[in-house]
């Protein structure tokens, strides 16, 4: 339970509050919510809605990073699953569309997991292969065009609402709870952290480290595929060139902001999702402020730096010394 809601989440929560406060200043209506046609609207809802793809990606990514790996292919997997979903949407039921798209994500994850766990390739290189090839595969599926669809079921997935909550947000929340239940309800969480912390020692303790690594890449592929379907449903079409482009970096960033080390080991699902929301809150805030979007990247970098500094053990040691000095002088 400690890793689901850890004490160490303070830096992230503080950062989110500060950014929300800044957003409130640049856009006085930021916290306004209204109910229209049975669906909530407002900037906060926008943040959650827009943040869904990266939040889903970060759910898979955080597990991969916990095993000391990384998955660069999630953006490309989004494009593949989006292309599949868009191509099938108008002629098949939602169940078939989802099964095909998520199945593709699962296969992509198996591929990555096979390269890393069985062949022992370095994760960054192994997943780079699919990062490059995946977008090509997606373009082959869409035959280089932007495939649009009008299937109301799939459109609902991107734009509908359940009890006033946008469907994508509900899905992301559901996935967070599902992943949390699987990972912390079973021994998976401990064994993943052990594998990431010291794979050799874990192997010698009888942990099936290969199975762990395979499992996290598969889950990462499925999460990415789901994100891809939602992104496609949102725009009612699939653009193989741009769907999920560079989002793997946002996902990694979200995980890092969430305090999980790229060296593997301890991880937190909730904080990774919080990291995704921090990123999206910034994006939305900058859009609302009317500043040119070019500032977005710069501001993002600054905020990331600030959050990481807050987490840095050296800096907190320094802060400790400062307070102690003050204490002795007083």
């Amino acid at each position, binding site marked *: 339970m400690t890793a689901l809601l850890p004490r160490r989440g303070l830096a992230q929560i503080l950062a989110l509050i500060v950014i929300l406060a800044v957003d409130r200043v640049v856009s006085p209506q930021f916290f306004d919510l209204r109910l229209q046609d049975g669906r909530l609207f407002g900037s906060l809802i926008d943040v959650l809605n827009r943040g869904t793809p990266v939040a889903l990606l970060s759910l898979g990514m955080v597990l991969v990073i916990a095993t000391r790996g990384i998955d660069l292919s999630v953006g490309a997997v989004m494009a593949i699953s989006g292309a599949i979903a868009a191509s099938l949407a108008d002629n098949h039921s939602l169940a078939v569309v989802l099964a095909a798209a998520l199945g593709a994500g699962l296969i992509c994850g198996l591929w990555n997991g096979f390269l890393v766990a069985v062949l022992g390739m370095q994760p960054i290189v192994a997943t780079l292969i699919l990062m490059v090839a995946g977008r090509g595969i997606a373009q082959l599926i869409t035959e280089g065009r932007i495939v649009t669809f009008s299937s109301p079921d799939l459109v609902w997935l991107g734009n509908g609402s359940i009890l006033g909550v946008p469907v994508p947000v509900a899905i992301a929340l559901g996935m967070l709870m599902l992943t949390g239940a699987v990972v912390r309800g079973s021994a998976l969480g401990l064994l993943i952290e052990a594998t990431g912390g*010291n794979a050799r020692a874990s192997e010698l303790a009888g942990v099936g480290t290969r199975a762990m690594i395979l499992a996290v890449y598969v889950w990462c592929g499925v999460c990415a595929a789901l994100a891809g379907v939602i992104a496609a449903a949102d725009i009612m079409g699939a653009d193989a060139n741009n769907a999920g482009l560079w989002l793997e970096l946002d996902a990694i960033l979200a995980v890092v902001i969430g305090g999980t080390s790229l060296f593997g080991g301890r991880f937190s699902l909730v904080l990774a999702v919080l990291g995704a929301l921090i990123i999206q809150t910034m994006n939305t805030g900058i859009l609302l402020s009317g500043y040119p979007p070019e500032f977005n990247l710069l501001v993002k970098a600054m905020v990331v730096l600030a959050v990481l500094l807050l987490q840095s053990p050296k800096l907190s040691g320094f802060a400790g010394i400062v307070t102690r000095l003050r204490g002795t002088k007083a």
Partner: protein
Amino acid sequence: MENSPDSAASLLEARGISKSFGAVRALQQVDFTLRAGEIHALLGENGAGKSTLIKVITGVFPRDAGIVRLGGEEVAPRSAKAALQAGIATVYQEVNLLPNLSVAQNLFLDRQPMRFGMVREGEMRRRAKALLADFGLDIDVSAPLGNYSVAIQHVTAIARAVDLSARVLILDEPTASLDRHEVEILFRIMRQLAKRGIGIVFVSHFLDQVYEISDRITVLRNGRLVGERETASLLRLELIRMMLGRELAETTSARAATREHQAREVCASFESYGKSGYVAPFNLELRHGEVVGLAGLLGSGRTETARLVFGAERADRGQARVEGAPVRLHSPRDGVRHGFGYCPEERKTDGIVAELTVRENIVLALQAKRGLHRPLSRREQDEIASRYVKMLDIRPPDPERPVGLLSGGNQQKVLLARWLATSPRLLVLDEPTRGIDVGAHAEIIRLIRELCDDGLALLVISSELDEIVTYSDRVVVLRDRAHVEELAGEAIDVGNILAAIAVDSVAVALEAHT
């Protein structure tokens, strides 16, 4: 020795050194004197303050009080680099050079011979070769340092330090990962350097080596100076008493009590078990309530045997049986499933998961054995962890502390606890007492006896023959990756083991020299 240590002037003098970390007083008013041309052993249990003293002297940690004089002049280096410039060089157990660079590049890092802005590779190699020749080393200096043994890496680090005009050389556990022959090379070099007038501080857990090489001994305990003695006039028992501050009866306690055993039941057996190019086929029977010791030089196939028995390495011939039934041991998981446990020699890299807590490290093997779908509840984990923390006296007794923060001895106990929690039938312990302070050492040996009395089968590897003799019911001696001798009962003594190891060690030594 030209300079008798008594007449030599003091080279490095530390007076009244104090250092605290928060509320912990790591050093209190410690004095230390190193004379030119002497080899001075710095001893103490883990946590006695040896490392802290070294780090304060070399400026890695700022000191709270006290002064350090080098050749009569006060020095206060702010960093290890500044200390090096002042003439105090430190070589740590984990050599901090760059394994991917060549030996020559490592030797002249930061000060390569240059001409017209280009590194003169040829000149650098020539000088590197000459420098190492001084140390009796004739190797290809253009090969990456990482290709060479730890011993050669150590010598390279020492050569670099000495060439940087060091007057004081501090060696922190330099022999921990060296075999006997390599230790001799290192000792020869240390004596040579001492003759040149360099003062050497030698930190080690191996008391035999301390007696062999050192002129003087300074003992620390709990951050305080216990005393400084001349090695020649200090009895070993007295030294241990200085280090522990108490009588240490257990280490030599008699094993005889449980020794006259009848035929015990076989727990696991291995028939012509082996792997080509790894260990020659061997026959081995491990019985309940019996300790089998594996003795031999480093590289003789001891660890290899242990890994085959546990399943960490896959045999390509022979048959393994557990309680009489044939089994396959293809992975550690197989070993764990059959009730085996394995505490590897390299605790840090192969044993603990440093950032996880004591509790998590203890339940890891049990959880892996039970499988994913049967997680141990937090309450069960807490219960198991606190039971073993109490039973093995793990300190500090906090199951939620990351295990990486514990001392070596306590990490070893955590590993033992990890396997005991799986209720094993066979435990394989590879060097269970290596790098552990004397107090924990005796405790681990006592534990081994107790576990054995409870009916566990144990296979124990140790380089310390005294230790093997103390607890083993049978001793298997290995040489050149083959089992060459099995001693039992009265035949077990250090002399017999040495005789079995040494049959053609003269030939081995000659080979190593050419």
